[in-house]
């Protein structure tokens, strides 16, 4: 029986990690993630898990410790945010290049400068090309469910890649919501025992991780790494199917909302999708065919599937809670790349919203949908990229 609770996103993720009971955990605090690892540290102190904590002096060391522990042959976790993820950056590529199935909730937060602790997606978007699988979560329930599914995806014998589970800082990490927890035994059975693959501690078969590979082979190794990413989507869907059987909650590679017959659509990640769905309902009530697409799997990006889901629309706005200064928003770049390959495609605009935790209001969604409705009628786009909710 599912247990219904009122908890924060951080609490939910910490509980998912407790239920999985990993072997090793790299721990370093950073707002807004701190509270998640603090709760997990309590589980360790109280003997609720068998996890070996490694308390480190920085996130660079935290990821390094995780890499060592995962190569040794353990089920390994850590969690971080913002500057912490930025400091891990070079180690992220080593975790993925060595094919180590580390699971890491990332509580999304803005990057300095200016210093800001609130939710936006600049941190995870900066790790976009690091070779990690990225799952994004609208609310606490999705963050909890994604964290559990992440272990099955990361540890799949055809994949063996690290996974980030993204949730919005404070908006989700610190807000209390109604959630359904699975039973401990259900989670244990779902993730199964950790299966080793080329562990360093198998001393009967000595091996080396991280050798120097130069012009003769590096290109081939990267090609092989790309190939693994092409297999991830099917595994994500298979794991989601099993998860649905257990929990009754359905997951895909993205969530379409009233999209099938939509003329206009918003593409948006994480918590802001919830607000947008409400406003889409209001527009539908007014007879405007509005819809939404919320990506769940951002890396690898499901280009073909997202293009298929959007190509029938007349106008699409991709909304980014991160900017690429001097470029379009990162999500816009992906969606427009996806749609370029279709014969018939919608007009597209890009809005940057909610940086540094700036509230995303229903009025912002309404403003965007109104503009999209005009573009759908006229077929002309005035400004491709614009900031919204910004004081002039």
């Amino acid at each position, binding site marked *: 029986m599912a247990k219904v609770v009122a908890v924060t996103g951080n609490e939910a993720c910490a509980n998912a990690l407790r239920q999985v009971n990993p072997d090793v955990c790299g721990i370093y605090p950073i707002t807004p993630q701190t509270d998640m690892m603090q709760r997990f540290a309590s589980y360790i102190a109280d003997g609720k898990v068998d996890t070996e904590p490694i308390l480190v002096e920085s996130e660079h060391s935290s990821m390094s410790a995780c890499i060592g522990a995962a190569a040794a042959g353990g089920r390994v976790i850590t969690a971080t945010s913002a500057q912490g993820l930025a400091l891990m950056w070079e180690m992220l590529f080593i975790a993925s*290049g*060595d094919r180590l199935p580390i699971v890491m909730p990332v509580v999304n937060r803005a990057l300095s400068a200016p210093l800001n602790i609130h939710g936006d997606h600049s941190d995870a978007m900066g790790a976009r090309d690091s070779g990690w699988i990225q799952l994004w979560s609208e609310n606490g329930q999705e963050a909890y469910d994604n964290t559990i599914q992440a272990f099955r995806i990361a540890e799949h014998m055809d994949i063996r890649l690290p996974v980030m589970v993204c949730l919005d800082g404070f908006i989700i990490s610190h807000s209390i919501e109604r959630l359904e927890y699975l039973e401990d035994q259900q989670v244990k059975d779902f993730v199964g025992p950790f299966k080793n693959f080329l562990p360093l501690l198998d001393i009967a078969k000595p*091996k080396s*991780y991280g050798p120097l*590979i130069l012009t*003769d*082979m590096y290109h081939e190794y990267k090609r092989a790494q790309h190939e693994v990413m092409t297999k991830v989507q099917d595994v994500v869907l298979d794991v989601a199917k099993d998860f649905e059987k257990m929990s009754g909650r359905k997951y895909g590679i993205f969530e379409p909302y009233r999209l099938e017959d939509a003329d206009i659509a918003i593409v948006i990640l994480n918590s802001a999708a919830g607000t947008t769905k409400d406003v889409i309902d209001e527009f539908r009530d007014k007879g405007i065919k509005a819809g939404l697409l919320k990506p769940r799997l951002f890396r690898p990006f499901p280009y073909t599937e997202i293009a298929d889901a959007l190509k029938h629309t007349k106008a699409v706005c991709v909304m980014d809670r991160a900017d690429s200064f001097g470029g379009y928003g990162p999500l816009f770049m992906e969606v427009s790349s996806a749609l370029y390959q279709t014969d018939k495609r919608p007009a597209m605009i890009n809005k940057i919203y909610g940086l540094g935790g700036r509230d995303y209001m229903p009025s912002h969604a309404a403003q965007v949908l109104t503009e999209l409705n005009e573009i759908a009628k006229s077929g002309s786009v005035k400004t491709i990229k614009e900031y919204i909710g910004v004081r002039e």
Partner: protein
Amino acid sequence: MKAKGWRDLPPGSVVLEGGSAVKFKTGSWRAYRPIWKEENCIQCLFCWIYCPDMSVKVKDGKREEFDYDYCKGCGICALECPGKKGQKAIEMVEEGK
């Protein structure tokens, strides 16, 4: 030997064979070559201790010739060599001369 294609590689750039560094002969990196002068050698084995590789061969407690397959010519052995009566037992000579 045909070079491996990307489909032939073990996942994660892991080298699955122990001690495989022996197959990678690094002696060609050398710009300076250590020359052992046995007549000045007091068999202190400092060169054997200090060599960052394993390029000083020792048999029955006595040093033998350098292993030029792996010696990169760093010169640490020559620097540390106490020699005999002020005469070094290891001298660095430019390769190709």
